[in-house]
């Protein structure tokens, strides 16, 4: 990797510095809102990064990726509920169960192509969603409050906002690094080859099914860890975490940020979640000179702007934000 001073590298460097500075800013101004928001950004950025491995590099449009957030979250929640609060038990189990589930789903769904694949991954996610809704002992529809955060034998205190934030940031950076290493390895080349022409890859002797399945399982496992983080962050887990619209959000993050780019999903997570916070404010500011007090009501309907924005990204910015940054270098 060359550290050239391209617009894209500058943006990524500035972004990482800003992310690292968030808890410092919060400590100085005694305002915790940003830490809470950006912890969420980091966790969902990690989930989106894992999705990018199969979606961006592998061309597998999984429309049920949020299910692993739910599985990881429920692993933490259920264990905490039953009295096992040690993170050394909870987190590996969250990863393991997610990986096993991904193995089953992947083994079945990778037999299909195109829109069938999109829909079968969605259907399996729905299956687990309804399973969660039926979990009467663990709150069913209303979800489960997690009273004790994962315990790490005094090494880490997850109740400390800054510590938890830096843990998430570190895990995210490790994830991005490992996935970047993975896609540039021989394994990653096979995955990307299978995306462009699966038949040809098989013809030259790669059992692509196994490679794709492995990638699918890795993505699920990483997202399961993100789910364990998310449950610790919100102190709550409910089936809504794995609603299919959450899976849609993850796809939006990947595409918005830039598919098949290492930092793209993180950029997408930052962009989407910031947009969700900023759009109501923007609408209020833009509309208040024209409509006065009515602007406050208009700001409630910010999703009416967000939806068509997705359509515009699809139509005019296929490479996402990362693609625009890369294009700026060439232009």
């Amino acid at each position, binding site marked *: 990797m060359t550290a050239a001073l391209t617009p894209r590298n500058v943006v990524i460097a500035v972004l990482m510095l800003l992310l690292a500075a968030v808890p410092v800013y919060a400590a100085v101004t005694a305002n915790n809102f940003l830490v809470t928001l950006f912890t969420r950004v980091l966790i969902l950025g990690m989930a989106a990064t894992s999705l990018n491995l199969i*979606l961006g590099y592998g061309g597998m*449009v999984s*429309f049920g990726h949020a299910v692993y957030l739910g599985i990881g979250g429920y692993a933490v929640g259920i264990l905490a509920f039953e009295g096992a609060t040690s993170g050394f038990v909870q987190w590996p189990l969250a990863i393991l169960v997610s990986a096993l589930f991904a193995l089953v789903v992947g083994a*079945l*769904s990778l*037999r*299909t192509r*195109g*829109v*069938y694949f*999109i*829909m*079968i991954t*969605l*259907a*399996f996610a*729905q*299956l687990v969603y*309804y*399973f969660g*809704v*039926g*979990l*009467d*002992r663990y709150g069913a529809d209303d979800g489960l409050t997690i009273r004790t955060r994962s315990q790490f034998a005094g090494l880490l205190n997850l109740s400390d906002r800054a510590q938890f934030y830096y843990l998430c940031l570190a895990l995210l950076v490790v994830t991005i690094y490992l996935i970047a290493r993975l896609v540039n390895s021989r394994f990653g080349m096979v995955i990307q080859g299978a995306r462009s022409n699966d038949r040809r890859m098989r013809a030259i002797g790669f059992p692509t099914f196994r490679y794709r399945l492995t990638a699918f399982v890795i993505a699920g496992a990483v997202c399961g860890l993100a789910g364990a983080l998310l449950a610790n962050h919100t102190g709550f887990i409910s089936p809504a975490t794995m609603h*299919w*619209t959450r899976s*849609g959000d993850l*796809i*939006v993050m990947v*595409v918005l940020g830039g598919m098949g780019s290492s930092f793209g999903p993180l950029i997408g997570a930052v962009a989407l979640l910031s947009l969700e916070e900023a759009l109501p404010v923007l609408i209020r500011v833009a509309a208040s000179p024209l409509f006065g007090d009515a602007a406050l009501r208009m700001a409630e*309907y*910010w*999703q*009416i702007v*967000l*939806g*068509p*924005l*997705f*359509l515009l*990204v*699809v*139509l005019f910015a*296929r490479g996402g934000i990362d693609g625009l940054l890369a294009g700026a270098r060439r232009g």
Partner: protein
Amino acid sequence: MLLFIEQCLNGLQFGLLLFLLAAGLTLVFGIMDLVNLAHGSLYMLGAYFAATFAAWTDSFVLGALLALGATLVVGMALEVVALRRLYGRDHLDHVLGTFGLILFFNELVRLVWGPAGLSLSLPMWFIYPVEILPGLFYPTYRIAIIVTALLVALFLYILVMRTRLGMLIRAGASNREMTGALGVNINLLYTLVFGLGAALAGLAGLMQAPILTVQIGMGENILILAFVVIIIGGIGSIRGAFIAAVLVGLIDTIGRAFLPDLLRLVLTSRGASTVAPAMSSMMIYLLMAIVLVLRPEGLFPVSSK
């Protein structure tokens, strides 16, 4: 036994409703190769239009007809303004773009009709049950849904297989360029097909409206069921959609009705009442998984293009 027949009828009614939704979805996918997640929004709009127009005109039938026309127009406008630009793109683009449209429509409905749901009341003559078998009374309205949906299915069959328009639709599906080169206005044809699909979704929505509350997001869960239906039936096949829809409707309804009793035979009653609701929601997804494992292209695959 009477209960079983009644549940079968309920399942049939639900299945046929799913068929209306799935038929539009599978038409649009089979012909334009477009994955339209916003199909559920058209279903929702159909219900909202019906509730509004029925209140204005004070007549359920008149309101329903107006709502049908309105969804047709909205569907065609949607195709011309936005979805036309997505043809020929990646399926991922379709998912993302139409996902955005769902957010848009949900918010639009909240803006126009407010966050609270609406209700649509039936005319008196629809409410009374009729005796269809000795001792078995069944609501007139549900019978009306079954009859309407069967008529629509017949209409679709005749339209696609027996008319000139249907011939053009099939031609456009198998080779777009060639059909266009022969002087057919492909753009207009696609807009019409999309409008037809939208009207079918609207019809499903407005017929379901008196049974459930009309609310934001009502189209989303049933949309996923409609996707399950077209996957099981084979994407692009109306016949497959019909059979799969009835199958899914029956399994879902009968499962919900009888699974708790069946489970009680093997589990404790407390265990059964815990497991049953989740199991019955999961059954159709299991069915889909099984079908896909055995026949990855669905039960009635459309011969490859």
